[in-house]
Structure formats: C-alpha cells, structure tokens
C-alpha cells in the first residue's frame, strides 16, 4: 500500500526518541558483534583442530591387515558345506603386510576421476638404539613430493629440509619428541634395528612436529627406497596406499569398492576419525547457542523500548487512527521501527564483528604443538554474516510484533475521551 508514508512516519517517531532507539540498536549491535566473533573464532579453532588430523589423514587408506583368513579350508570342502563348521584356535595366516600388485592398483587410481591423488607408503616398526637403550619407533617410507602435495608433509618439518630424505641415501627425519629422547642433532647418525634384527645407520636430516606429541615421540620418515633397503625388500614393496579424493563425502562407498576390487583392506576417513566430527559439532552448537541467546536478550531490549514508545505515543496513535489510519497501518509503523533498529543495529554489528575477528586474527599465537599457526585462527565464513543478519531481523521482528499489535488495538475513543 502506501509504504513510503508508513516508513516516513516510523522514521519521525524514531528520530523523536533517538536516544532510546540508539540504546536498543546498540544492544543489537553488541549481540551481532559477539555472535560473529564467537562463531568465527570457534569455527577457526575447530578447523584448526580438525585440520590437525584431517589434513594428514587420507580419505581412503589401502593396506593389508594381519588377520585370520576369512576363507578357512574346511569351508571350501564340498563334503562339509552342508552343516555349521566350528573351528577353534584359529591363527592368523602367514599373510604379508605387502600390498600385492601395487603398480596395477596405482595405475587404476591414476585413471579414476574421483581420486585427487595418492601417496604410497611403507610403515615398519624399528628400534632406535641410544647407547644401551632401545626406543621403539615407526619408520614411514614416503614419497616426499606426493606426501607434501596431498598431506602438507613439508609444513610440519621444523628443522632441516623434507626433500633431503629423497636426495640423500639412508637419511631420516625424526619426530621432535623422538629426536629429543635420542639426543641427536641434524647431521648425526642414528642406529636403527629392524624387526629382523639387522642394524642400520641412518643420517638425521630434519625434525618433524605434527602437534600431536604422542605421534612425535615414535614417528620418523625416510624415503620409500631407504625403507625398502632397511627391510630387505624389493623395489615394488609397499604396505599402504593413501588416497585423497576430490570429494571427502564419498569416501565410505569408494573404500568399499576398492576393498573388493583390489582385494585389500580399505579404511575411510569417516570411520577412522568419527570422534572429531562430534567434538566440532558440539563446539559449534555452543557458539550458536550463546550467540542466539545474546540476540534474544537484545530482542527483549527492543520489546521494552517499543512498549515504552507506544505508551508515550498513545495520543499520536489515537490521532492517526481518528484521521483515517487503520490498525494495520499503525501496526506496520511500529514493525518498521523495530525492523529498522534490527537492520541498522545488525549492520553495524556485522562490521564490528568483522573488525573484532580481524583483530583477533592479528594476535600472535605460538604454541609448540602447532608449528604452522602464527596467530589465532579465524574462519571468515560468509554464512555467519548471513545467519547473523537474518537472526537480527527475525528477533527484532518478533520483539516488535507484540508491541505493534498492542498499538494497532489502541481505541482512539478511550484516548480522546481520557484527555
């Protein structure tokens, strides 16, 4: 209908009480600012913690588990196929950890469009000899280039150079915790005893720090060729293929598919890390709850101020009605007042929220366990701004609704007679 008239009347009423209006708008501004900052910071933190694990976790991992054969000989014998066969004291077969036909598998992966990349790997247990003490550890034989491209390996090298393990024969990168235990420096040689009992000298070319201390106390990295030599295995021996997909969501079905196609074990990221999802979603939930609570409090502020304004403006409402404005027009005037408080308060809140989170983003944040992080993490997801602004409009609309309804029901006769 005649919206511009409604808006201009609302504006005049607002400006006539600009101090109260300002207080109400500041309430909205404050809550939106906090909402944006809280969510940006919390989500930034979540992403960081998730990234700690997820960045380095393959979406699908192919490997061979040591486990009893699913096809026990008796089940294959047609003479016994009629009944239930109870077998006791099953032992794992002499199955090897090696992935058979790894070259064929990798060729297939190269041609699969769902695969963003893969990195072959050998994992083997060893003892690091430090004088009379043996420290058990794990040596990962990796393709440094692929590992860096897919899993940010180089980001976690805190001293030395990741690429050195592929350039220098018999070199190794030690976890920081492990290096501290062994008391070795870069350039030193560590003695490694393999599971088969052979002694092997390896030159330390760098330290690795993942941020997970338990990992750093046992992990070490060498080139695939070095580890193959260490284990006395041929050049095609690998134990793991780590696959990164273009879309993380399809990991479970892809894992299942590869498991049967290549006849290996396949683990998807969702199964491997289900607990992290829960942690982040609870943190996010708490941030939303706090943010929305703030908005509701601001909503009550608006409700109060509108109620007061309506009480003060009874005469004006009566005269508007007497001169031909309907209850609906009056209601709209007050709804417009409420929404504009929400709109302008919210807009400034979005700007302040951005400013505050940008400020937090500049604060230095150094911790030994997170070597790649220099400042507090902030997630600038535009979604928070969309949610923040819609919530500010919705709460102010709701806060304005009851007072507006009250205003629309004002009986001009009662007011005019009461004068």
């Amino acid at each position: 209908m005649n919206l511009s008239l409604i808006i201009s009347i609302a504006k005049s009423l607002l400006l006539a009480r600009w101090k109260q209006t300002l207080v109400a708008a500041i309430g909205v501004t404050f809550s939106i600012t906090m909402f944006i900052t809280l969510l940006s910071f919390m989500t930034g933190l979540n992403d960081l913690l998730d990234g700690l694990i997820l960045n380095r976790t393959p979406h699908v991992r192919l490997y061979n588990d040591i486990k009893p054969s699913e096809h026990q000989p008796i089940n294959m014998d047609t003479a016994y196929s009629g009944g239930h066969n109870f077998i006791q004291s099953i032992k794992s077969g002499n199955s090897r950890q090696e992935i058979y036909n790894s070259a064929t598998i990798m060729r297939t992966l190269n041609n699969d469009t769902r695969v963003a990349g893969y990195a072959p790997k050998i994992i083997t247990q060893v003892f690091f000899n430090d004088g009379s003490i043996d420290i058990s550890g794990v040596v990962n034989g990796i393709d440094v280039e692929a590992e860096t491209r897919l899993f940010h390996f180089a980001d976690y090298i805190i001293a030395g150079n990741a690429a050195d393990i592929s350039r220098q024969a018999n070199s190794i990168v030690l976890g920081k915790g492990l290096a501290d235990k062994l008391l070795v420096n870069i350039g030193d040689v560590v003695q490694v005893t393999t599971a088969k009992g052979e002694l092997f000298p390896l030159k330390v070319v760098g330290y690795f720090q993942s941020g997970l201390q338990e990992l750093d106390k046992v992990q070490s990295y060498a080139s695939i060729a070095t580890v193959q030599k260490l284990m006395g295995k041929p050049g095609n021996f690998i134990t793991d293929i780590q696959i990164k997909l273009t879309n993380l969501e399809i990991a479970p079905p892809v894992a299942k598919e590869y498991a049967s196609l290549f006849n290996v074990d396949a683990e998807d990221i969702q199964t491997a890390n289900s607990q992290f999802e829960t942690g982040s979603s609870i943190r996010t939930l708490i941030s939303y709850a706090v943010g929305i609570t703030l908005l509701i409090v601001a909503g009550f502020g608006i409700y109060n101020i509108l109620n007061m304004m309506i009480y003060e403006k009874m005469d004006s409402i009566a005269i508007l009605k007497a001169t031909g404005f309907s209850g609906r027009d009056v209601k709209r005037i007050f709804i417009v007042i409420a929404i504009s408080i929400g709109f302008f308060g919210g807009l400034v809140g979005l700007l302040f929220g951005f400013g505050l989170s940008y400020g937090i983003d500049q604060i230095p944040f150094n911790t030994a366990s997170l070597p790649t992080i220099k400042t507090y993490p902030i997630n600038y997801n535009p979604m928070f701004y969309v949610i923040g602004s819609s919530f500010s409009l919705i709460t102010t609309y709701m806060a304005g609704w009851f007072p507006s309804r009250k205003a629309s029901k004002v009986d001009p006769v009662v007011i005019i007679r009461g004068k």
Partner: protein
Amino acid sequence: MGNTILEAKNINKEFHDPITVQVLTDINFSVNKGDFVAITGKSGCGKSTLLYILSTMDTDYTGELHIDGEAMGNKKEAELARVRNEKIGFVFQFHYLLNEFSVIENVMLPGLKLNKFNRQEVEHRAMERLKMLDIGHLALKNANQVSGGEKQRVAIARALINDPFIIMGDEPTGNLDKKNSELVFDIFKRLAEEFNQTLLIVTHDQSFAQRTHRIIQMEDGKIIA
C-alpha cells in the same frame, strides 16, 4: 433526500462498566449537505458519546448509521478508517497534533494517507488551507511551537485536507479564550457559508450554538429538540 450526508436511525448505546447504563436512547436525526449543526446539552448527557459513534470510531452500539448513503454497520475496521480518512474531518477540544511533525506535515498526513494526490499536490493543498486560515507563515514550525489557538486552526486545516463531506467537532472552542473562540467560530461559519461545508459541532457555548443554522438539544441521552 439526495443531499443527506449523515443519517442516524434508532441509535442506542449502553455502557456496562461498572453497571449497565443506557447512555443514548433512540437517537434519530439526519444532516443535509451544507448544514451547520450544533449539538448542545448538559454535561454528561451523551454528546461526546454520540459524536464518537457518528464518527465511526465507536462501533459498539445498536441502530443504523449512514454516511453519504452508505451503511456503516457491517464495515470492517480498515474500511471505517478509510471512511474517516476520506469523508470525515475532525476537530477536538484538545488540539491533537503530532509533535514529531511540522505544522504542514500534520496537515498533509491524512492527505498522504488518502493517496489520491501526489506529495507535491498534497503539500500545495495543505498550504492553501493554512493560508486560508491565516496561518501560512507557521507551515514549517514544529507542531509544539505554536499557540493553542493556532493549533486549533492547524487542526481545522487538517480536517479540511481531503475535502470531507462533513466536519465534526467535539467542543472545538472549549479550551480557547474568547478571542480565539470567535476566530474559530468565524472560520466554521465561513466554511459553511462560502464553501457550503457541512459541519456538526458539539458545544457547551450557548452563544456559539445560537449562531449556527440548527441546534440539536440533548438531555439524558435523548434528542429533545
């Protein structure tokens, strides 16, 4: 009867709080185009109550009310608001102006609401009416910066903005001194005689009533003359 502007038939009104009292009993009368009518009577006889019913603001009554030949009885709130906007102009005892607006904006508001003319035209019409009432120089003043008598003239200008069929007033001179009362009365008289404007004015002031064209005398909720 083509020029009957307002017609009341068997209007009865009761208040139920705290006890049921019959305030208006069987009110029958009509106002023709160009009439200048005064309603008088003792305090508490129901004049204001009647005027609120005739102005469509009070809908809690029995009987029939026709304005410009249209029955008001079964109209919705928004439709009645439209009737007030278009066909009725109001002047109250206390000059109800909106203090958030300037004098001319106060006059313009009902015109803008009617939305028949654009903003410039409404502003022009408002200025015409202010000038006619000798208060053109106050146009840009704030509504609470003008005197009581001036406010009442602003209220009359506002009542005139949409060329209403009828102007209703509830003791429009009740709060004014002698000089300003005269001024307001002269304006009403001029409107009636020069512009053939229909007026229905409730008043206590006998000298005021005497000088109108027709007097409706009330007593205890009934019309006696």
